[in-house]
């Protein structure tokens, strides 16, 4: 599948937002869209987010403590209309607990277009892959600097929507500069795939976004977004930051 969720005429900016982080968290969706997001990743919070650093852990904990659930977040989504694709990012246990088919169907019903499961490598993908396809969801897969060529080929073969290049070996979280591993990784993936390749993990400011844009098809910005929200930024305030990233990518 090479269907992409993203327009190809500009570098893509995909912010990440923890679902249910505030009572009216969906206001952030509109602000992100307005500020130039090409798609939005919505984190369904999980109690044990193994791949996440402190900021997104904290956001997940806060959302769960508020009482956010998969059901409430999807219900909130179903009530809003956003002009860019929405991609759910979560962990395998939430998918398997509901059952992959039911889970993907509920996502699709809520208007979600794609799915990322952080702890589901290609080797364990089959059941979720079928369910996502059946529900018409793009299945975005992660590629890491340590991924072998052989695994990369397999990932590329099975991914859709876009490819998520983990720019650095580590967890999510803001970093000062784009890691040295980012550019070679993006190049390796682009050499074997037509899907847009987005760099993520550690991209926190315009300079890094620009650097990502220079070597890949765009950037995913997660922890930097959630840090602002945890610090109390309103949707409008957040929009200012996103607009800056947009500008850096353009």
């Amino acid at each position, binding site marked *: 599948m090479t269907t992409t969720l993203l327009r190809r005429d500009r570098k893509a900016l995909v912010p990440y937002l923890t679902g249910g982080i505030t009572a009216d968290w969906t206001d952030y969706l509109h602000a992100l869209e307005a500020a130039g997001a090409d798609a939005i990743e919505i984190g369904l919070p999980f109690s*044990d987010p193994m791949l996440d650093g402190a900021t997104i*852990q904290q956001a997940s904990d806060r959302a769960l403590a508020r009482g956010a659930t998969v059901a409430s977040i999807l219900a909130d989504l179903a009530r809003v209309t956003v002009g860019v694709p929405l991609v759910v990012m979560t962990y395998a246990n939430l998918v398997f607990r509901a059952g992959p088919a039911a889970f993907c169907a509920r996502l699709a019903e809520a208007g979600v277009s794609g799915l990322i499961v952080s702890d589901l490598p290609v080797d364990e993908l089959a059941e979720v892959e079928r369910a996502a396809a059946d529900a018409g969801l793009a299945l975005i897969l992660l590629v890491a600097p340590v991924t072998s060529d052989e695994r990369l080929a397999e990932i590329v073969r099975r991914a859709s929507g876009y490819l998520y290049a983990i720019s650095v*070996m580590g967890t999510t979280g803001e970093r000062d500069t784009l890691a040295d591993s980012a550019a070679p990784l993006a190049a390796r993936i682009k050499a074997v795939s037509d899907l847009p390749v987005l760099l993520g993990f550690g991209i926190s400011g315009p300079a890094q976004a620009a650097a990502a844009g220079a070597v890949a098809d765009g950037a995913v910005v997660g922890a930097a977004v959630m840090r602002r929200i945890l610090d109390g930024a309103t949707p409008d305030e957040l929009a200012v930051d996103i607009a800056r990233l947009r500008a850096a990518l353009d």
Partner: protein
Amino acid sequence: MTSLMTEPAAGRFGDFGGRFVPESLVPACAAVAAAFGEAWADKDFRDELDSLLAVYAGRPTPLTPAGNLSARLGISLWLKREDLAHTGSHKINNVLGQGLLARRMGRTRLIAETGAGQHGVATATAAALLGLSATIYMGSRDIERQRLNVHRMEMLGATVVPVTSGSRTLKDATNEAMRAWVADTDQAHFLLGSVGGPHPYPWMVREFQRVIGTEARRQAGFTPDVVVACVGGGSNAAGTFAGFVDTTARLIGVEAAGGAAMSNGAPGVVHGTRSMVLQDSEGQIAEAESIAAGLDYPGIGPEHAHLGAIGRAEYRTVTDDEVIEAVGRLARSEGIICALETAHAVAWVLKAAGTADLPANSTVVLTLSGRGDKDMHTLIGDKA
């Protein structure tokens, strides 16, 4: 009966197991699996490990008849004495194995999670012995409960990192250790302490703990009616069961009532493996609640989930109160102060003896997984 005997194909034990980790960790896990597979087939590696287990860790540990308790309970109870192994629990078997493997793989650093601190102490010990550095993640709640072990780890030169997220226990320490591994797969070996985690850990740790069951079976010289062990992640139980799986012995794992993944959990994926997990209806992992830090864990190794599903092993629960009572009873009747974790197995024997679950005259081999020095503090607080 292939479970407990062979390498699990693709890391699966029936419906359970697997390798549910971020792509960043897949190559590291695969490298461990390959290296372990090779090492385990290499006589030199096995000989070196066996030699360390003997001259360093004090194996074989004895199989002690619990004469007084047996007489009182009307059964014949034997204790496999992992409390006498160096560092005070069965955890040393696994860390020496993985420590040698890490060195063979050229790693210079060990990363581990710990609950009761026994695995952390064991890891710090292996690191010191093998010239590696060690970083141990431990929930801040467990740090409070198991101070003695924190001091031991530090004395051994390890760095102990307090984990303050979530329930601040073993589950959260495990998350943090895996996060640390992602960031350092080149230098670091993740030295998981039990039979959970992504393939090859459940298989590898069971193999390193198999020595418990192999020795116990040889020492017993008979087939016991029942083989019983406490179950946190399930490594001492897996190692024990492995020695008896091809006999008629009933295999009983005893969980903490507040952390009973087998009895109260549902299938789920946590910490890289699919197994039985305590969780809510949407899949959020529940916080376990046990007086024994080493059993205060919402999951269990996938092979146990499988053994339970196929009926080859049975799982029971006991309460904190029963556990406290069991520590005292074993101490006063046999002169052995066991760990709170171990006391779960003892408590089940005390409770079941003479019932249909453990009829009079049964022969029982119980794995005494560790000693209770680390818990005196908790027990005394509890008394007061």
